[in-house]
């Protein structure tokens, strides 16, 4: 199948449109005949990362690549960065604003969820911004029967 590659901008605090990239990616994966379970894992990962850029960063971009054997997604934002990555990866740890919490976010489960659903995850951060990479392997059992 053709390689799919898309780039999107993600705006800071744009909570009403958060989930757009997850939704478009979900549609693209379904079209390729991937199973509901596999599609759900990727959707969860993209959604959580997308929300993080919206509620915690100054804005950024995401690149979604889908090939025959993997889905890889890279979120890049322009700051303020994560001071302690180890803490950020802890279940329940959150610095979410009251604005984010009122909107149902801030459970501190986003990064742990991404780690749980992906086959590989890499998080790098400085005051200049954060780069989150996640990869999902596509094997035969990832296709709908």
């Amino acid at each position, binding site marked *: 199948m053709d390689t799919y590659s898309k780039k999107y901008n993600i705006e800071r605090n744009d909570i009403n449109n958060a*989930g757009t990239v*997850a939704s478009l990616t979900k549609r693209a994966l379904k079209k390729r005949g991937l199973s509901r379970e596999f599609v*759900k894992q990727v959707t*969860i990962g993209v*959604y959580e990362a997308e929300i993080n850029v919206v509620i915690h960063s100054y804005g950024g971009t995401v690149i979604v690549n889908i090939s025959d054997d993997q889905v890889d997604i890279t979120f890049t934002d322009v700051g303020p960065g994560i001071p302690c990555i180890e803490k950020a990866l802890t279940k329940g740890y959150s610095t979410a604003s009251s604005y984010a919490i009122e909107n*149902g976010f801030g459970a501190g*489960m986003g990064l742990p*969820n991404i780690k749980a659903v992906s086959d590989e995850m890499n998080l790098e951060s400085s005051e200049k911004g954060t780069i989150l990479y996640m990869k999902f392997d596509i094997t035969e059992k990832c296709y709908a029967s």
Partner: protein
Amino acid sequence: MQVKDILQSKHLTLLNQQGNLNNTVKGIFACDLLSHVMGFAYEDNIFITVLNNINVLGVASLIDLGCVVFSHNIEVNKEIITKANELKMPLLSTKLTTAEITIELSKMGV
């Protein structure tokens, strides 16, 4: 079971016109924190919440939940109803508390 079957309950009312009432419903997930819903709910679950927020719809449709039930008789804003129609997601409302409607649905055999 389908959404139209649980609508037989006198405790539930339908809030939107374009939800798919033939959606399968299986199991219940009650929560007001979206990352917990994202991480732990299963497809076709009935999602019970008091979170009066458009992101509820985003999550429900992204992970293929069966329908959304707003408990505690909360006043659901128009924006949510419009979005639910767009996504064909059935929106239900109840005067019962989250715990009470969970028990009620469970008695119905969801």
